[in-house]
């Protein structure tokens, strides 16, 4: 299951940090963040509860970059 989300972030390095944070979230198989298109693509683990996982992804991202936002 792959989904793409619109994000808000101010700097390229912060986008890289968000990518790392998202990847480490339980339930996320893989994640990529593009600072250029302001999108986050998330590949979920089989059977993951997407909205719960995304809430956790947002929480983890906020921890590394307080200024970010993910629209889901």
């Amino acid at each position: 299951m792959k989904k793409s989300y619109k994000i808000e972030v101010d700097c390229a390095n912060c986008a890289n940090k968000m990518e790392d944070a998202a990847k480490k979230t339980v339930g996320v198989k893989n994640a990529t963040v593009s600072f250029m298109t302001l999108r986050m693509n998330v590949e979920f683990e089989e059977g993951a509860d997407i909205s719960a996982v995304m809430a956790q992804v947002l929480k983890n991202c906020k921890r590394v970059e307080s200024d970010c936002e993910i629209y889901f």
Partner: protein
Amino acid sequence: MGDIMTKKQKKVLYRIIAAAALMLALHFIPARGLLKFGLYLIPYAVIGTDILIKAAKGIKNRQPTDECFLMAIATVGAMAVGLIKTGDYAEAVLVMLFYQIGELFQSVAVSRSRRNITKLLDIRPDHANIERDGALVKVDPFEVPVGSIIVIQPGEKIPIDGIVTKGLSALDTAALTGESLPRDVGEGVDVVSGCINMTGVLYVRTTKAFEESTVSRILDLVENAAAVKSRPERFVARFARVYTPAVCIGALLLALVPPVVRLALGENAMWADWIYRALTFLVISCPCALVISIPLTFFAGIGGAGNQGILVKGGNYLDALSKTKYVALDKTGTLTRGVFEVSAVYAERGISSDDLLLYAALAECASSHPIAKSLRNACKAELDRSRVSMITEHSGKGVTALVDGKIIAAGNEKLMAELSVSSRQVDEAGAVVHIAVDGKYGGCIVVSDVIKQNAANAISALKKAGIKKTIMLTGDRAAAANAVSSALGIDEVHSGLLPEDKAERVKSLLEQKGKKERVAFVGDGINDAPVLALADVGIAMGALGSDAAIEAADVVLMDDDPEKIAKAIRIAKKTMSIVYQNILFSLLIKGACLLLGAAGIAGMPVAVFADVGVMVIAVLNALRALIVKKI
């Protein structure tokens, strides 16, 4: 300034102006001691509060290695040095000021190029018109079921793929193909979404759902392209992760070790001096020039290519394209038009060429074979089917029929032999149709695939772009293949290949190539999908409307122009050279400034240049990748 900046960016701009004005005013106020410190705190707070807050948050979240943290430490440190020793506070404020100017510039540059590129690809239709009770209703294209009739007014985008059922018009396909010549369409013609209807009202029966339509697939592809990261992008991300902490430790050592050593040697420790050097070190160290300019370059390269009708699925394919040394090409549909046309008519004495063609076309009037179609197309006169009767197909040989009371046989040599008619020998590339009239040889017609107009230029452009070898892989017969390859100047030909043989050939190319060389395969994408996937770079041609090609290829050429292959390679080369320029340039300048800073030769002003100046130059250089129209 209008819409150049967002609200957030404007706020930063006002703060920069306010802080700069305050600094200017303070320059003329002769304050001393703590009063001076207090006065300089005002512009410092105006320009730096958000950075300090962010840095504090970073420390709280145990992520204390971002630029804000570096800036906070450097400027607070500089303030402290001022307070203790030098009494100069302007430097700290100026560093913060320049940092903010640089950040603002970068953010404006990025959001502008983001907007530029999305504008290039602004093909997303926002509505579809449906006729309901005699009135046109605007609906969301998502809600239009397959098989509905949609109405497209002049000036509107075609929202969904379909077939024209009524109306005549010209389509502007520039957004999809980069081709500025309008395409004429009428009843029965397939139209793809994303084109702009120019002249007349079109009624279109949709053949796909919106999310399956060309425009949705292309948007999907483009939006995902930036997520496929290239080697240099990954390098930069990894580099930044190691680099920032390393520089912090370096700065700490610079602040502590030399003074301690000096103390041990019984000299003056010069704490303030070394701390100042360490702070300079920190300001220089910001990795932002690299971190922002490399992805920006790829993004601009992909955007510029997209504007030319070349869709690249990710930065890594630009990397691979720039290293491509071998190009294998499919023949039919790639170098040739894939449409058979009558290329020669040899009539025997006593019969005109036109009659010969007419007889052949009439005899073949019921056949759906591509050769039969080409005969009918070549015949200028209207075909009256009532003149034809008793059509008999001879499988694998041809047809016989009664035309105007004459027995016409049209087919290959085997058919002629069967009728014991001796036929003329023809040594031309293409399929030969022999015709016998009432058991007497009438002549023959050569039908062949037509080479695309600019195919020869395409091959020579590939050579100029540094391709070592061009190889043609085709399922066609040797004669036809050799004719095309020698006309175009292709280095190597393999003919009579089945699709799996093509894959074998590409595999052996992959084994032969050098370590830093890449192999590209160019196909029309319909039956070449496995080979497209196998090659280092799969390039699909003429993909407008072909889903299979868009799926399988790494690079999609939206129109049929083979010259775009070399253009894609040139764009890739330009992009990659900018990437390496930026990496080299920022690392060298930063490295040099770090050394000078550590040695105490370069102060804060140089540090600010190494940080902000290098970043601005790198970003401007990155944006050059957008300019690809004339390369």
